[in-house]
């Protein structure tokens, strides 16, 4: 493999794996469920997309660009926001505790309490 292509593949692999690791560290370390929702949907999706770009570069040869991995990337980019939306809806319905005042699930009972 030519050195420039190998360096490019290595860069995308390290960047992708680094982003996925940062996303998972955020999933462990963030203090609240609604903040924890951000890190896998953005950082991990971006990290896996970077790894898939590296594999597109690795498995392409002159005259044939392998677009198989692009399918997985597009699917992931389409379904990660849908999953996050459903998870947030499920957490709101179950009154999962939020540390941030405007995000309190008690606002769902706004008919009962006034002046808050």
């Amino acid at each position, binding site marked *: 493999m030519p050195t420039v292509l190998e360096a490019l593949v290595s860069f995308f692999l390290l960047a992708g794996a680094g982003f*996925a690791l940062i996303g998972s560290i955020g999933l462990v370390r963030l203090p609240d469920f609604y903040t924890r929702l951000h890190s896998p949907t953005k950082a991990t999706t971006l990290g896996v997309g970077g790894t898939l770009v590296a594999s597109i570069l690795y498995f392409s040869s002159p005259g044939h660009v392998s677009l198989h991995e692009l399918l997985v990337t597009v699917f992931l980019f389409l379904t990660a926001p849908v999953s996050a939306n459903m998870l947030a809806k*499920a957490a709101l319905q*179950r009154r999962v505790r939020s540390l941030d005042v405007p995000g309190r699930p008690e606002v769902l009972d706004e008919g009962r309490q006034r002046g808050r």
Partner: protein
Amino acid sequence: MLSIVVPIALAMMGVAMALNLWRILVGPSAPDRIIGLDTLYTNTIALLVLIGILYGDSSYFESALLIALMGFFGTSALCKYILRGDIIE
């Protein structure tokens, strides 16, 4: 260069998946565990891609695509279940 970088990336993905497992075990609520499982699905896609690059065989993307599909269905089914109590009404 790739023979050094691919094991490093594999080790990073392994640590990321262990952290996801921690969140599944420890998450104080059910949506926490579901999001740990969804992230585990996504990290498995990256792991399979890395193994495909390690072995030089491009047929591991079929299983990566399958896991992406089934992972999304699994997360949707779990969320629908804890939202409504029933998956198909």
